[in-house]
């Protein structure tokens, strides 16, 4: 029983890490006033870029390449929505289409039929000697990929930045009331652009974590809707960095239970698949009443900002 719980928790942390990284980025993006539906595609692009970079020059290079590609996609989204003022939702969905198609396309060009699968070196796992033995939570907390620790550090950093720095204030102001923020000297478009670039980079990092952190291989189904899960996690988490981690954790926990329950089918596996989405929906009902969403979220930028 103890080992099973340990396994489920540790598995949940591993499954949560890619989603949580993307969700952290999306939380920043949404705080600045944009919804980025392109993160699903961005994650897949990051997964491929990570795999490519890692196979050429080690896992660090893979991560760097993924972050660069993600940042670039974020900038493209910013260009279209902030400078071109196109509809955020349409641009986001089209970025997902483009990135998904391009990842498939480029992978087939990179590895045409007859070539061997790429060799993708994995990023290391951190083993903390004694703490790892703590019952129940030991493996979940002290035997994880470097990215899981990076994710926690990032959440701490982002939470602090949002509260305590001018950059955080500018971000929140841009997402709450862009016109007035502009009157107060905030460069709204620059702020939102930076947020989108960061959000893209983190989504791509999340994708790269799947290939370079865990799998050591790539196929076009590796992200399998996790970008949309990250979007939901941001909402369950009420747009806070810690909330985004918690939201990602909820989904991952259900996934982990589904995997470890194996062939002992107590409830149909589809119930476990569907449950996190229903939980999110229930959370939405509660959160919607609280209503602390960034006020300008999803709206086109006003002309005077």
């Amino acid at each position: 029983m103890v080992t099973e719980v340990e396994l489920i928790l540790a598995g949940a942390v591993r499954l949560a890490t890619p989603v949580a990284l993307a969700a952290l980025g999306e939380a920043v993006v949404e705080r600045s006033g944009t919804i980025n539906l392109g993160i699903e595609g961005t994650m897949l692009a990051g997964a491929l870029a990570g795999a490519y970079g890692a196979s050429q020059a080690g896992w660090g290079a893979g991560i760097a390449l993924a972050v660069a590609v993600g940042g670039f996609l974020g900038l493209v989204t910013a260009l279209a929505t902030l400078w071109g003022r196109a509809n955020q939702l349409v641009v986001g969905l089209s970025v997902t289409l483009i990135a998904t198609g391009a990842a498939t396309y480029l992978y087939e060009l990179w590895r045409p039929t007859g070539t061997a699968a790429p060799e993708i070196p994995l990023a290391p796992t951190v083993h903390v000697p004694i703490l790892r033995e703590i019952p129940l939570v030991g493996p979940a907390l002290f035997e994880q990929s470097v990215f899981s620790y990076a994710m926690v550090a990032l959440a701490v950093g982002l939470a602090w930045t949002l509260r305590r720095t001018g950059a955080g204030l500018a971000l929140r102001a841009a997402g709450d009331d862009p016109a007035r923020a502009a009157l107060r000297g905030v460069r709204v478009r620059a702020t939102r652009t930076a947020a989108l670039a960061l959000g893209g980079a983190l989504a791509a990092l999340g994708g790269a974590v799947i290939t370079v952190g865990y799998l050591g291989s790539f196929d076009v189904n590796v992200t399998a809707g996790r970008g949309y899960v990250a979007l939901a996690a941001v909402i369950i988490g009420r747009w806070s960095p810690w909330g985004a981690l918690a939201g990602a954790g909820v989904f991952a926990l259900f996934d982990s239970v589904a995997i470890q329950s194996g062939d002992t089918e107590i409830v149909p596996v589809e119930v476990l698949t569907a449950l996190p989405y229903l939980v999110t929906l229930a959370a939405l009902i509660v959160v919607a009443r609280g209503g602390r969403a960034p006020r300008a979220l999803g709206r086109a930028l006003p002309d005077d900002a």
Partner: protein
Amino acid sequence: ACGSSDEDGSAPAASGDAAPLNVALLTSGLTNDGGFNQWAAQALQKLESEGRITLQVRQQLSDPNAAEPVLRQFASRDFDLIIGHGIDLSASVLKVAAQFPDVHFATTGDNTLEQKLLPNVEGWTYDFGQFGYVGGVVAGSVKDVTKVGIVSGPDIPFVQTALKGFLEGLKATNPSATTESVFTGEFYSAQKEQEAVRGLVAGGAQLVFANTAEGNGVAPAAQQAGVPTVGTAVAGSAAAKEVNITSANLNFTPVYTGYLDRLAAGTFGKRFEVGTLANKEIGIDPVNAAAAPGVPADLQAKVDELSAQLASGELKLPDFS
């Protein structure tokens, strides 16, 4: 059951050194998975390099929605042979083939495929029990292994057959070993395979058998957990090279050569074939003695002997299905 009848007389009357035939290969996974799909692509590419065919490959068509239009496109464009490679493609192949009686198709599946074949469709499967048995013998030969973990894909009959074969082989060489078995529910889900391996190893498994398409998720997780594997595709990932002891493999060259010969002779159609060690359509990878300390020095010899016995019929296995 292996009768050949060719109702349609429109097959091109081509001889061996006539113009190469147009062949299309549709796979359900990626053709560089190091396993099932790559073996098929390799065999056809070899034939292409010999000038016998021209080849077109389309990958990742496990979804019938995506596969059927592609099958139709090929069928409507004068291809001499269209191969739907993968059990998830067989239903689509049969459906499209019924609408294009003049075009030749081939597909793979399990034993139930035989009854569904059409005059213009040939079918192929392999001896899953034998395939699994070889893995079981290898796993049972590794010293000091008391518990073996098994990761399977979907819980369907032919996967069960291979699983039973494995258990029989294991019992034959290490009767005291216990096993724990997990189904991921999918042929290609690397991350689920990974978590399954972690669960098995945490539960005490000292070796993991991959009873999936190619075990691309099994190998990295096993490497991290420090246990060897049997049955993962060595070409599929860097980790597998390190930790996999050996795997059974499939050799499609004789299968496809047979298709071409029958097309040339005008006898192609409704033939069903089973790959075995005896007809050399099942093979065994070289043993990697460095994969685990417990691999006995004579394992390669033992495997070779087993393979010979099974091929010659000296060793007969029960029907596992």
